[in-house]
């Protein structure tokens, strides 16, 4: 999965288009349901990540990062998925950045993705 088409776009537009093609043939397809599922889960997932980093990482961090990575990739939040991947691996000493540093970057990226996702939904 390439990162976003534009370096400043936090979302993979191809993936979003794919989600719109799936499901209901109303022009929006599966996109609203999937984005809402992601956004609804997000506070819990973020809290789990913060807790895991605060408690020194380890298996709980790897698991929390893995979960978020999967759902982020599913809705096309590629940069988020990439940072989750690094966080998941940080436990093995891979990569240069520490877990708290990666978490900081992830928080920023999540804010951007969240904003962009909300903007991609039909106005209610």
């Amino acid at each position, binding site marked *: 999965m390439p990162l976003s088409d534009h370096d400043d776009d936090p979302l993979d537009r191809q993936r979003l288009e*794919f989600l719109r093609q799936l*499901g209901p043939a109303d022009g929006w397809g599966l996109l609203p349901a999937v984005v809402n599922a992601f956004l609804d889960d997000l506070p819990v997932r973020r809290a789990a990540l913060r807790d895991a980093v605060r408690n020194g990482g380890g298996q709980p961090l790897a698991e929390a990062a893995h979960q978020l990575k999967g759902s982020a*990739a599913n*809705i096309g939040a590629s940069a988020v998925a990439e940072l989750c*991947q690094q966080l998941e691996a940080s436990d093995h000493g891979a990569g240069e950045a520490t877990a708290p540093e990666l978490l900081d970057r992830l928080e920023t990226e999540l804010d951007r993705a969240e904003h962009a996702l909300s903007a991609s939904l039909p106005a209610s």
Partner: protein
Amino acid sequence: MRVLVVDDDLGSRLVAQAAVQALGHECVLASDGQEAWQLYLQWQPEVLLTDRTMPGMDGTQLCRAVRDVENGSYTYAILLSGRDEQADVLSGMESGADTYLTKPLDAFALQAALLAAARVSRLHEELNRARAELMAQAHTDPLTLLRNRLGLADYLEALHSTSQRYGRSYCLALCDIDLFKSYNDTYGHQAGDEALRTVGATLASLVRDSDQVYRYGGEEFLIALPEQEQGGAVQALNRIRKAVQGLRIAHREGGPSGYLTMSIGISEFVPMRSITSAKLLAEADLALYEAKAAGRNKVICAT
């Protein structure tokens, strides 16, 4: 096909479901391995599309559990995993997954995998059908179309243990056509075969649905009568003995009646009696010899 989708992420489940349904397949969703396992047992899907990493029972364990219980049926298992989990993918394949797809799920890759799944599923169906057919053929006597001895030992063992467990009687009857060798000598083997066919069909038509008729040997038939006591068995077998005589198959050397007749030995399993089915069979055989010695065309019970 029936496709069971397993993922702990709701969004991923929704995408997989829509993609599976768009390809014209049925889809059931599970949010963890345990739930998937229950659905697998109930629903027997042709395809399992499962996330690799899940809390609790993961995709690898799920695949292994499916392969462990499969008996004849086959579920094509597709493992979903991140791009960076190659080692885990291999362990998943070793546990029984047929292929893997990388996350996030892509509709084209899924379509390709389901095409392979449909082919494998069809092959297994054909294999099952052929296996069942061969099995039936192998257990059938080609002349009389009755069961042959191949499955007899298994059947008797099952009958014996069920009867023991529930405290029920059953009877075994060995039926032997009288002076059949001389019938063959007099009328030829083709007539002998025809007589065997006719007698076999007569036995099969006169027993209860729950009774089993086997072609036991050359001119010998075994009838197993579950949940039948000796008195009832004697009545039933006498009816059969008379019916065989009533076929009026001429047999000049066949005894006083001038028709083909049959001698029958019966043994009975009584609950609480300590005996094996093989011993009961031997008892019926002895009773059959007594019937022959007593002048043939008789039903005799083991004592």
